[in-house]
Each structure stands twice: as C-alpha cells, then as structure tokens.
C-alpha cells in the first residue's frame, strides 16, 4: 500500500494550460503539504493544510490553488502554466498536525514540464 500517492507521476503540458496534481494519503495523518523542488534540487514549501484548513501559504503566485476536500486528499491546481513552473512537486503528510517533532512522509513526486 502506497502511503502518500501522487498522480500523475509525469506531466508535460503547454504554456497557458491549466492542470491539476492529485495527492492522497492513507496514513490517517491530519496535515498535508505541497513542496516544490526546482532544477537545482532545492525544496521549498508551498502550502499546508491541517484538517482541510489552510495553515501555510508561502509566497506563491495565485495561479496555484490548493484544494483539500477531506483530510486524506490535497490537490494542487495550476492555472495559466508558465515555463518557470517546471519542477518536481512533492506532496507530504504528517501525523502530528504540524506540531511536535516528527518527520513527514513524502509522495514520489510529480515532474511537471511546461513547454
């Protein structure tokens, strides 16, 4: 059983399109996150949801909109895709609601290429 699963694994799309990445966790965690890994492999948080409530919203263009229909799912929708959006996007979840001293469980990533 995959703990944190993301779909699709690869996504190639043209500039200006709108696309979504889905994430689901079956760990019973109450906090989920989206991280972006750039071409230099640097990872930075984008969003975090705790029990469907947005708790982290970093400086991200408003073309990016996360949606959490329930605490097991956190989807990322991107409007009007730009070349600079090309990156690997990682979903993650945490069992402690964002508090305490535990690590995250990460998905395997979605490699987005905008052409």
């Amino acid at each position, binding site marked *: 059983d995959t703990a944190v699963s993301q779909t699709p694994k690869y996504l190639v799309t043209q500039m200006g399109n709108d696309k979504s990445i889905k994430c689901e966790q079956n760990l019973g965690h109450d*906090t989920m996150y989206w*991280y972006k890994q750039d071409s*230099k*492999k*640097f*990872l*930075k*948080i984008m969003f*975090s949801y705790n029990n469907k409530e947005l*708790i*982290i919203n970093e400086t991200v263009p408003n073309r990016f909109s996360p949606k959490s229909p329930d605490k097991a799912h956190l989807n990322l929708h991107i409007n009007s895709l730009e070349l600079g959006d090309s990156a690997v996007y*990682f979903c*993650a979840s*945490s069992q*402690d*609601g*964002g*508090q*305490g*001293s*535990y*690590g*995250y*469980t*990460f*998905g*395997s*990533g979605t490699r987005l290429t905008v052409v």
Partner: protein
Amino acid sequence: AQSVTQLDSHVSVSEGTPVLLRCNYSSSYSPSLFWYVQHPNKGLQLLLKYTSAATLVKGINGFEAEFKKSETSFHLTKPSAHMSDAAEYFCVVRLRSNTGKLIFGQGTTLQVKP
C-alpha cells in the same frame, strides 16, 4: 530565524570507505532535525531524526548522525559506503510552530566510486 546549511554540495567516496555529510543549523531553541535521502527520480525517504532525546541518532541503512549543540552541527555518517548509497541527501530543520514547516538544506550529492 531557523535555517540549515549543508557545507558540501558534492561528496565523492570510494565504496567501503566512510561517509561524512556535514550540516550546520541555526535555531534559537533546541531544534528538531532530520536527514532525508532522495535517490535519482525517486521521492524523499526519512533516514533519521533528532528530537531532543539521545544526541547520537541511528537511522536506516547504517547511517548515524550526532547532534552537537556547542557546534550547532548535525553531521551524517556511515562507516562504510555502498554503491546503493549514491543519492542526494538533505538536512532538514522543523520549525516549532503551529505550522511545523520544514526548512531544507541545499542538498549534498553523494557519489560512490567502485
């Protein structure tokens, strides 16, 4: 502000020799620190974590890390490198706030030569 600095962007070792990946942190309180590994085209896997218990932390695959408050360091070591250890390694600090945000270091690429 909390941050982590990985002192080497690239480390190359021969198979069977020790591995040392260096990490320094900056935090105004006792931090929670982690090492994650990312194999090529794969996700992130937790190697080990420090959460203010024992300062020497043992992780998976023979890796260890020692928390040294006086040096603000959390270096990752392994006595004998294996070819399968070749990967990207990230030192990470977790902010003690309601958000529990993770701050990643820049990463260290470990190359293992036969």
